């Protein structure tokens, strides 16, 4: 009985230690990436290529989801606000929930599963096929040449994608509320205009998405770089990227929101 309890405690202990050492390893890898990120800016064409692969190719999913999320918010918001007789405020509801929460969080989750997993799989396969070791043999630092551009490409793309997500979301809300339901267009925009503060809502939302971008890209590159060099290892690393970056996004969101609402 006592032995069983001891084993349980040991497994809890090893889980916590694994979690903490995992976070520590990601941080060390992030610092290493930052240390060797000179190449990403000196040879900016490398970074541009990665912005294309993680940013431009994510556009379709981001824009379509933004439109649908905005439309759903418009419908739901209208239904609820109508019972209080203030259906014109639907614009405020759509804009505030998108800029403060849904825009940064949903676009970051989509970005983690669309671009983060691709980064992990690519770097993991490069490692499995010993391309990274070959680079080291030629005295090319793989962190500077392979990891850096992918990291910065993702970090730059994330806030841009979020801004577009929020923009299309507001347009989706407009399509539903004004064009289909018939809420007054002037009241929709003017109430939204009065309620949304540029620095407090819009810029804070983009700051959030920048932090999420940092988290996703450092987790994705770390998982790829530390993946076991087998087919199984790469698939496991890709899964871990999506799971741990989604958890990191939601946890960071709580912390950032608490700070932003206080300030």
């Amino acid at each position, binding site marked *: 009985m006592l032995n069983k309890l001891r084993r349980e405690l040991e497994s809890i202990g090893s889980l916590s230690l694994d979690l903490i050492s995992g976070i520590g390893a990601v941080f060390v890898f992030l610092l290493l990436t930052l240390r060797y990120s000179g190449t990403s800016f000196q040879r900016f064409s490398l970074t541009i290529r990665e912005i294309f692969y993680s940013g*431009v190719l994510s556009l379709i999913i981001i824009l379509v989801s933004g439109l649908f999320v905005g439309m759903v918010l418009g419908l739901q918001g209208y239904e609820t606000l109508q019972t209080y007789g203030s259906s014109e405020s639907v614009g405020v509801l759509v804009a505030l929930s998108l800029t403060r929460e849904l825009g940064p969080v949903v676009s970051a989750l989509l970005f983690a599963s669309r671009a983060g997993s691709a980064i992990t799989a690519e770097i993991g396969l490069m490692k499995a096929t010993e391309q990274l070791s070959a680079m080291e043999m030629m005295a090319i630092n793989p962190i500077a040449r392979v990891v850096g551009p992918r990291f910065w490409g993702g970090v730059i793309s994330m806030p841009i994608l979020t801004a577009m997500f929020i923009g299309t979301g507001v347009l989706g809300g407009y399509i539903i509320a004004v064009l289909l339901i018939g809420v007054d267009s002037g009241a929709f925009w003017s109430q939204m205009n009065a309620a949304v503060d540029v620095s407090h809502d819009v810029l804070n939302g983009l700051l959030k998405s920048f932090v999420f971008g940092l988290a996703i890209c450092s987790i994705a590159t770390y998982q790829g770089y530390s993946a076991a060099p087998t087919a199984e290892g790469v698939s496991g690393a890709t899964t871990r990227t999506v799971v741990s970056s989604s958890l990191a996004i939601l946890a960071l969101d709580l912390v950032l929101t608490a700070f932003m609402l206080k300030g």
Partner: protein
Amino acid sequence: MNRATLNLWVGIFVVGGFIALLFLAFKVGNFSSGNLGETYGVSAHFDNIGGLKAGAPVKSSGVLVGRVVAIQFDTKKYDALVTMRLDKRIPFSNDTIASVLTSGILGEQYVGLESGGEPEMLKDGGEVTHTQGAVVLEKLIGQFFLSKSQEPAEASK
């Protein structure tokens, strides 16, 4: 994919991001109306400010003329001290009346200014002495019931 096409797509992506940001700043947010240009500061004491917050608009006849910058509790008079910054191009007379009003039933609260007839104008750092605080719903309901309870007595005469 060749480099020129890559650059073109990334260029379109970045420009699209800027357009989205401008849309958020000017159409969704209030970047344009938040700027008042040159301002002067005035203060006012209110017995009750209700739900007024720093950053709330100051309006006269419904037109935005300034913003509330700070709200403090004055321990000398034991009431609320509201500091506002008003547009320099719009002078208000010394006997201006300031009141805390609500736009709509559940809307945001703002400070309404009504200029008086005095030729002397408010200066930077001046004080609006005629003020009217926010209407407290509980007090209003209390007054309503008080007047209702007196009514039947008059009606039965």
